[in-house]
């Protein structure tokens, strides 16, 4: 999804009538979040996506809207080991991604230094070694983390969808071709494992949890549409239903 900032203000007519919707400003923040990560080269080329965000955050300084937006996005995205469990399992790498988010948290809570004068040219200095005083890793910034009484419950790694039989049949023929499945990718580089200990990730995760409801976002409960539930739609032998003018049928 390259060039996402060019996409974000496009408006497509919705196909569905889903009642819960994402506000345009949130789409902009998401695009910025994705762009910032995508613009960065991870240190040594070994890090993952979150390490890219980490690099972007590190190079942000001041109190500009851009830095605030990235920090806000990271606050919401940074569920530490919880998201780590998702990333690890989906990508078939084990639950290591929480460590990356731990690094991300360290970068922000440890203070942001040095505005990215030219983040694009690659002139920005490489992040310091993991675990060093200024690396932003949770190991280095542990003192900045509010102690928590109990460790956050580690995420349960969800079932990988990549090799799941759940979807193979469903996707076959969708575009008149066999369902294509990416491989799980290479195993996560071993250096990620050294980013943080489980306790650090849990503490960071708990810290993020504490930040929830900090007033950054208004809570809005998604109302029910009053429409038929999926069970009702497909219940009693019903094999198809109308969805906003589109016929949805059992496959």
């Amino acid at each position, binding site marked *: *999804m390259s*060039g*996402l900032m*060019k996409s974000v*203000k*496009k408006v497509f007519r919705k196909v569905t*009538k*889903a*009642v*819960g*919707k*994402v*506000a*345009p*400003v*949130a789409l*902009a923040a*998401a695009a910025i979040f*994705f762009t*910032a*990560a*995508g613009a960065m080269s991870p240190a040594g080329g070994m890090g*993952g996506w*979150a390490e*890219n965000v980490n690099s*972007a955050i590190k190079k*942000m300084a001041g109190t500009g*809207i*851009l*830095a*605030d*937006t990235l920090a*806000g*996005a990271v606050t*919401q995205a940074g569920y530490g080991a*919880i998201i780590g*469990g998702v990333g690890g399992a989906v*990508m078939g790498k084990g639950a290591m991604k929480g460590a990356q988010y731990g690094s991300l948290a360290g970068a922000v809570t440890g203070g*942001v230094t040095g505005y*990215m004068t030219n983040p*694009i040219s690659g002139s920005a200095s490489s992040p310091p070694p993991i675990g060093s005083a200024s690396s932003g890793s949770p190991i280095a910034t542990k003192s900045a983390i*509010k102690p928590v009484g109990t460790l956050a419950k580690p995420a349960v790694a*969800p*079932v990988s969808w990549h090799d799941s039989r759940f*979807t193979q*049949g*469903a996707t076959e023929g*969708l*575009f008149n071709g066999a369902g*294509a499945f990416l491989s799980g*990718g290479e195993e996560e580089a071993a250096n990620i494992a050294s980013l943080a200990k489980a306790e650090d990730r849990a503490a960071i995760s708990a810290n993020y949890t504490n*930040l929830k409801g900090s007033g950054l976002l*208004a*809570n*809005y409960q*998604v109302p*029910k549409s*009053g429409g038929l539930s999926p069970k009702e739609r497909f219940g009693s032998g019903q094999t198809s239903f109308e969805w906003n003018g589109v016929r949805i049928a*059992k*496959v």
Partner: protein
Amino acid sequence: MPGLMQEQVPEQAPQGMPQEAVAPDADTQEGGQPDIEGNVSPEEQAEYDQFVDKGLQLIYNEAMTDKILERLQASENPIEGLANVTFMVVEKLVNSAKKSGKEFSGDVKFHGGVEILEDIANLAAEAGVHEYTEEELESSIYATLDLYGEMELKSGSHDQGAAQEDMANLIQMDQDGSLEQEFPGLENKFSGAKEKMNG
């Protein structure tokens, strides 16, 4: 800013208006989304429609619907569950299309992915699994994008040059004060976020 934000945005939040001003209950039909007119070409809209329609076919395949609901139900964190399922659906769509020689544009993947996420959240609400707040929907988007970015990196499909160009523009806009004009509501929504994180 050349090359950035070239399209107009009808029916979206006016400049400087807080996000609450575009609350979903305003001007909606039967409790659903506002009937927003698009600002894209018919060809782009058709591509979008195809993407979302195929996504719905995947989601509402009988066996898949149950599995999706089971997956959402089993997730200890609803954000994790929604991101996981959305990523799965989008990835399957993108890769199935590729197998057939079709490549969806980034615009379609982004906006279509968001609609698929919204629909899955709606499905979860209708099935009584979880009613997602706006905050949770947003967090799920970040988590989904994180998964997608990771996948792009690993598959070698990520275009870092385009992202760098966009980021350079964003920084420039931040410095000259035009960022809020281009993205109304960012300041209102995120002001002070960095300080809060720093505690």
